[in-house]
């Protein structure tokens, strides 16, 4: 009995450890995203370069968390919520690693964008969208560390705001490119920055789904609220990618 208790206690600590590592990795991914956005809006080459070089840390952390999760499953054979938490940590690690990749990609594009003439209204629009995405990522990670179901659901329901920003930015960028072909190069990079931000926003939604699954053991049923017919008026056809 006492060994059993001891095992349980030890196991709980291991799970806590895993969660703490994921949270710490989340903090790093958050900082990468925030810094990448700042590199674009402030045309900060040094910051962009440091974001690119820091990405490796996320890769290492992901491997570490995966290895620990697999070890935990193999040795402790967790069931029910313990199993969901372990698998959740693995999923989180891979989502955060990809989030970091998008941040790195944004930072690389910031290097190109800062070489061209500044287009202030566009960088401001990117910055606004970036702030929104960063705030969603923060909320999603907060819901992960606190295991707050309602907070996770709130993140899950509010995805459209990011999508609409993306669609609107897309149109704006097209207008700029049509009016002045010299801007096409930096506008095309901005377009990918916006797309990357939109993907990061989707990952925040995925984190909310993981939290929901971890807490309840059920997947969220029903569709996320999305605008239909995004493609009709020449906007980016996000429906095709779903």
């Amino acid at each position: 009995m006492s060994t059993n208790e001891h095992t349980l206690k030890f196991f709980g600590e291991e799970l806590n450890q895993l969660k703490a590592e994921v949270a710490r990795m989340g903090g790093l991914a958050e900082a990468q995203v925030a810094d990448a956005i700042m590199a674009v809006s402030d045309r900060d080459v040094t910051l962009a370069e440091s974001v690119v070089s820091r990405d490796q840390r996320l890769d290492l952390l992901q491997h570490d968390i995966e290895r620990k999760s697999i070890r935990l499953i193999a040795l402790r054979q967790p069931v029910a919520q313990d199993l969901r938490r372990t698998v959740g940590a693995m999923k989180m690690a891979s989502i955060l690693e990809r989030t970091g990749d998008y941040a790195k990609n944004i930072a690389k594009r910031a290097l190109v964008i800062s070489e061209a003439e500044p287009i202030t209204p566009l960088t401001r629009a990117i910055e606004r969208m970036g702030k929104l995405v960063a705030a969603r990522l923060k909320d999603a990670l907060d819901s992960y560390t606190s295991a707050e179901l309602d907070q996770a659901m709130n993140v899950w329901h509010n995805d459209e705001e990011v999508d609409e920003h993306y669609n609107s930015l897309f149109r704006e960028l097209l207008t700029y490119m049509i009016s002045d072909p010299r801007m096409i190069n930096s506008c095309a990079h901005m377009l990918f920055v916006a797309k990357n931000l939109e993907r990061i926003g989707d990952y925040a939604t995925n984190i909310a789904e993981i939290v929901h699954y971890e807490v309840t053991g059920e997947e969220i049923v029903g569709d996320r609220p999305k605008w239909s017919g995004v493609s009709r008026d020449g906007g980016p056809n996000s429906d095709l990618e779903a």
Partner: protein
Amino acid sequence: MGVVAAAAVLSLVGLGKADAPLGLLTAAGLVALGLILNLMAPQRRAAMTPSVIDAAVSSTPPEPGDVQTYVSALELAPNPILVVSAEEADDLAGRRIAFANASARDLLRVAREGALLVAAMRNPNVLEAIDESLFGGLDRVVTYEAGGPQSRFWRVWTNPLPGTPARPRLALVIMQDETDVRLNERMRADFLANASHELRTPLASLTGFIETLRGHAKNDEVARDRFLAIMGRQAERMARLIEDLMSLSRIELNEHIRPSGVCDLTVAVADVVDALSPQLAAKGVAFECGLPPKGEAWVAADRDQLIQVIQNLLDNAIKYSPVGGVVQVEVDVGLTLEAAAGFRPDARRLSAPDGGRMSLQTPTWSADVRYAILRVADLGPGLARETLPRLTERFYRVEGQKSGERNGTGLGLAIVKHIVNRHRGGFLVESAPGEGAVFCVYFPMSSAAGGSPGSKNERNTPLTDASAREEIKLS
């Protein structure tokens, strides 16, 4: 000045509850006091070196009374203060919060004791600094920006603390809000950029008219009157623009500070409706009000800013209403975040080919908050879906809007958004071309005045009810 403040803190003996480990808090309290003193009085920095603090710690054996004092001092300090304990360097779950003062609990949403450090703080630079204090014995200072709708900048001091037998590794974390300084810099730059850009057009037109008046229109009395009238309007527009820009800057500077007042949304709406009646009559537009009785819609709000929000929304509704149109103004109370965000959608608008609904500002979720919502619906030309997310941008103009209608400054909805954000509220728009537009703002209800069922009954006496209705009818 710092000494006086510290003395004041020290005089509040016995207010704290000493249920955290005593020795730990004594040491933490002394070091924290030293550091707070340093923050408050930079010129005294030299005097409060760590060795002085060390001496103070070792020369003062904790007495029960002293401990109470230090706990109170930590608890009452305006800065968020954490004491972090740790096990081994590779044990992330071992880093826990041994103590969080009131300000830190409020900011980081953690319990006084026991939470995982990463549950409160994820910023990699801060975590690294804390690690260096815990395991390397180093003092560190880092800055970071906490994201979210009301972004704040923090400067964080981390210092190693003398350990206790139960907790050998301890670090003290003190945070200082530097949002004001950062925002001030930023606002100044934004204001200059916006003002110089937006004032250029009316200024160019003024200069043009002055040249014409000096030149060939010098003796043409009819032209002169016409030009002077246009110039007068341009000058008015410039004045309005500057006023709106200043107001926006002021709001943004305080955006991270929650408003402290409470205000009755019903009364505020009724006041604005009253004040707008001349404009209504001039345009032949009527208001259709559906307001709850006075005393039911208490929201946590700064009254002036709340009025500004209502004013801007109603102004817009009147401006875009056709002559003889009706503007619906409704208030509803006691809604959850979900209910407020999904308040009364209109199938006709949502199913229209280019119609839609979207949130322009969503508050951070927090449990148990109820919202009071204001819904303003007009029968104007409506807005296409793709314009909706951009409505709160400064100086955004909907394409195809006739220049004659450009009598606003282009800042009205930006001001609404920033005020709503400051109030931790939400802002929604629903519209379709040809189907009019609906703007909703919702604010957290005040728990102080929102009241228990008992006080609610008290307010619902027929007398107050009738007088509230009376007031609404008047408008």
